């Protein structure tokens, strides 16, 4: 366990110092895998089934935030739906627009789950979605879980819809009715929506309420609740499910969730930051590298949003010079500097390039500019 913790601390330290290279690489790989999987499973538009398009889009996603990757993936899926027929494409576009307006715009940060959910269902590990959302998100992530289920079941219908469109016996209206039926009258989908929402809420509450080993307990209980609710739901709603697959899938999901918990728990992945500011005398170009604080305890509160800036007294701002005595042999005691460990940053400061000429700096200094329009309305 100590070796794993040390390994994690090294990984976090490495990430914090080189995140400017690592983060785009991770985003590129994530986008590539998602788009490649979409092409393999729902590749109905022939012109998009091209590895170069996937690579180019993945490169674009590497420089966008994660929500950009989600948006591009959803647009990719809608374009593939147009490959089946125009009506199916329009239906997909309207469905995702509806989900965005009603749900996704309130829970944007978790929206990657909507793209991953179809593949989680396909590979029989669906419980990884609600348990991960519960461990990493908030209670509102239950909405993301429900949206992910709706998206997954819509995409599950696409192969049968593609077969129907090729059959001339079915009209466009019947195809659209089959699509709507697959979402509205699908008892299994409704059961999974309820189960996912319940698991997210329970996992979130356990993680927040339990102080000792909260993450591990929430992962185990979450997967257990998923198995129980799936079996009970299938019994009451008369749905056929393969209980063995559900249990095996939950066990595999548990391992994945424990790995996520191990890397995410009590670890800060803020990465280094590059700052630029000036005052009357100098330009400052600063790289700030956070220290790795990884230790496997339950004391870290990741929900603490308080902005703490070190507040100094006037003595620390301008320490008073001690009075000199007539005795030339005695040396005055110098005031202690504030403990730099308090700031938790290692600072590399470089001044302007060497020049004997003092740079012409305008009267305004960025750091001293008061934010305009600071309005406090009663």
């Amino acid at each position, binding site marked *: 366990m100590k070796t794993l913790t040390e390994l994690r601390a090294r990984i976090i330290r490495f990430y914090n110092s080189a995140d400017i290279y690592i983060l785009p690489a991770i985003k590129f790989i994530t986008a590539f895998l998602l788009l490649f999987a979409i092409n393999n499973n729902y590749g109905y538009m022939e012109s998009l089934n091209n590895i170069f398009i996937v690579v180019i889009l993945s490169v674009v996603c590497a420089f966008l935030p994660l929500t950009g990757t989600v948006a591009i993936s959803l647009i990719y899926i809608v374009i593939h739906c147009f490959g089946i027929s125009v009506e199916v494409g329009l239906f997909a576009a309207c469905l995702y627009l509806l989900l965005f*307006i009603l749900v996704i715009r309130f829970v944007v940060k978790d929206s990657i789950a909507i793209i991953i959910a179809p593949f989680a269902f396909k590979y029989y590990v669906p419980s990884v979605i609600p348990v991960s959302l519960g461990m990493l998100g908030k209670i509102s992530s239950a909405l993301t879980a429900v949206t992910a289920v709706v998206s997954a079941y819509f995409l599950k219908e696409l192969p049968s819809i593609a077969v129907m469109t090729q059959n001339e016996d079915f009209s466009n*209206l019947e195809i659209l009715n089959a699509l709507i039926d697959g979402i509205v009258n699908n008892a299994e989908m409704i059961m999974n929506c309820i189960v996912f929402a319940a698991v997210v809420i329970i996992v979130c509450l356990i993680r927040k309420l339990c102080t000792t080993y909260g993450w591990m307990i929430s992962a185990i209980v979450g997967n257990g609740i998923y198995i129980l609710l799936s079996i009970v739901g299938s019994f009451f709603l008369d749905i056929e499910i393969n209980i063995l697959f559900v249990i095996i899938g939950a066990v595999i999901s548990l391992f994945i969730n424990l790995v996520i918990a191990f890397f995410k728990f009590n670890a800060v992945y803020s990465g280094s930051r590059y700052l630029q500011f000036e005052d009357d005398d100098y330009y400052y170009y600063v790289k700030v590298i956070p220290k790795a604080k990884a230790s496997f305890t339950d004391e870290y509160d990741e929900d603490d949003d308080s902005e703490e*800036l*070190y507040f100094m007294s006037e003595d620390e701002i301008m320490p008073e010079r001690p009075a000199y005595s007539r005795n030339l042999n005695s040396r005055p005691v110098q005031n202690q500097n504030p403990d730099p460990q308090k*700031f938790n940053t290692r600072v590399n400061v470089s001044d302007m390039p060497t020049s004997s000429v003092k740079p012409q700096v305008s009267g305004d200094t960025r*750091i001293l500019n*008061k*934010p305009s*329009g600071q309005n406090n309305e009663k």
Partner: protein
Amino acid sequence: MNNNRLIRMIHLAMYEQVDGKEDIAISKYFRRDYIAFGLFKNIVLVTIAFFILLGFIALYNLEFLATNFSNINFQPLILGIVIAYLLVVGIFSVIVFVIRGLRYEKAAQRANIYDKKLYELEKIYILERKAKRNGKVKRK
């Protein structure tokens, strides 16, 4: 170079350029303008979503509508649609009002702390300049 001042400047710059960009942008609005803008966007989006949903319902029941079009009493139907629309817009407006209000309060609090620390930094500069003028600190 005063290291204490420098570290304070770095923390403030970190907030200004990275962590608190959104807070500073939000706190530039009046509270009512920020919420009103959110509500306006919400009404537009919910109206679009409502008509999409209405279209799906109409599509699903198209056969029924086509065969019984002449027998349908449109007045209660339209009244029902209007009431449903107002209900949906009302519910989402309340949600947006609460979320935006909370977001504004938190952002304004953090921006106020940032502003306070900025004034404290200005005090440090004033003290340093006074000290230099009075010859208490030798400049390198």
